[in-house]
């Protein structure tokens, strides 16, 4: 049995800071928010994916893992131990979906999309990328954006186009996304519209 990677150094303050970053990220779509955690989770889980899971998941909020994480040894055990959350195979039951490989397509329509009466009962997708910037790229509009906001993610997550299409079709149901690069995250709530590419 291998030793389990450690959790938050200060669970109360660290969880608050990660939440704060996620809150600001979703409140100001496309605008990168700093996020540091000091976590060293089993690869290919990134410290940012782990931080968001540890801060927000628990036995009332199950986690779905993408094939890259599901196949990795220790990823599920790390999450179960530190969060108490169930790791589920059915994406429709997941409160959070952790995606370590942004290059793969995702079963977008199988995640929980919420219902017309309870649109909040939907999965939040957390997708690891290598870099995030707001200097150029896609132009975003919608609640949380004063006028327009640009966003560039590298690599550009394969599933994002499907998610955006789905969200505009089923709103107020839909999927909310956090993109997580080393040291920063960006939020893309379902209310955000992708306007054009610069």
């Amino acid at each position: 049995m291998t030793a389990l990677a450690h959790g938050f150094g200060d669970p109360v303050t660290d969880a608050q800071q990660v939440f704060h970053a996620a809150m600001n990220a979703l409140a100001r779509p496309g605008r990168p928010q700093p996020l540091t955690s000091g976590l060293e989770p089993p690869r290919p889980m990134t410290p940012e994916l782990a931080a968001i899971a540890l801060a927000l998941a628990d036995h009332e909020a199950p986690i779905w893992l993408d094939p890259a994480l599901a196949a990795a040894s220790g990823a599920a055990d790390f999450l179960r131990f530190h969060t108490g959350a169930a790791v589920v195979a059915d994406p429709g039951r997941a409160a959070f979906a952790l995606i370590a490989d942004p290059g793969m397509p995702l079963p977008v329509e199988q995640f929980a999309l919420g219902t017309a009466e309870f649109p909040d009962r939907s999965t939040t997708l957390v997708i690891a990328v290598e870099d995030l910037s707001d200097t150029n790229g896609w132009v975003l509009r919608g609640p949380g954006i004063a006028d327009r906001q640009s966003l560039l993610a590298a690599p550009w997550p394969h599933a994002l186009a499907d998610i955006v299409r789905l969200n505009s079709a089923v709103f107020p149901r839909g999927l909310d996304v956090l993109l997580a690069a080393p040291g920063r995250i960006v939020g893309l709530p379902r209310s955000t519209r992708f306007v054009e590419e610069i």
Partner: protein
Amino acid sequence: MTAQSATHTAPETGYNFAYLDEQTKRMIRRAILKAIAVPGYQVPFASREMPMPYGWGTGGVQVTASILGPDDVLKVIDQGSDDTTNAVSIRKFFKRTAGVRTTTRTGEATVIQTRHRIPEQPLGEGQVIVYQVPIPEPLRFLEPRETETRKLHALAEYGLMHVKLYEDIARHGHIATTYAYPVEVAGRYIMDPSPTPKFDNPKMHMMAGLQLFGAGREKRIYAIPPYTQVRSLDFEDHPFRIQTFSHPCALCAAEGVYLDEVVMDDRGGRMFVCSDTDSCEERREQGHRGAMLADTPAALKGESSHV
């Protein structure tokens, strides 16, 4: 049995940082994230019993406790004022359980918890305003059933609300709603702004700060992200209008702000003073002087407050 797994325990209390246990905070934080993602939609949450009564700000307190970090600076107002008893009590609660810095200055605060007012000074990007909400459902008094109102929201079927407002006009010549005046958020959900006077409604539109709403007894959290369209419901022939006051503030001479009417005696004597006490004090510090400043009791000028 009371021991929590907290490593960050505020001094004096034996409770976790900001009172709530971490599991409760996670549950509320998840609700807040969904509330932000669907602006104006009321997210049900498992509101906890708080050590203050339902109806006295338990929803706002739970939201504040869940977002607060050790570096935050907290301001609490009730009816616009920092030194009304309930505002003092809630501020004291967070001082004790979270040890955070508190302030009465709107500009200094990172988190502002409020009951019934929005500060006169516009909020900035680094600020979050948390509203205490008694009845979150704007359709509740038209349709008492949750199962029905939920359906109406799902279908965006808001005809009932327009009919009600129009009936007001037919009967009174005015829309007779003066506070908790319904708004449409981001073109989709009709939302109750909490019992703020409609005077404050325009401040919600495209506000730079994040607006969070907590209803503890009714177990709902909702949000308006920064820079979001907030439209007060109205009609072409009866456009939305805010209250106007014919006098400036008697203490600081401010105009275009919301005023409290203070009855001075039983012979009809009254004065009008700023409801936002911080804004009023700052103006007086800057040298603005209202007509009745000299002969106003000290308590009314905020000089007896112990903050």
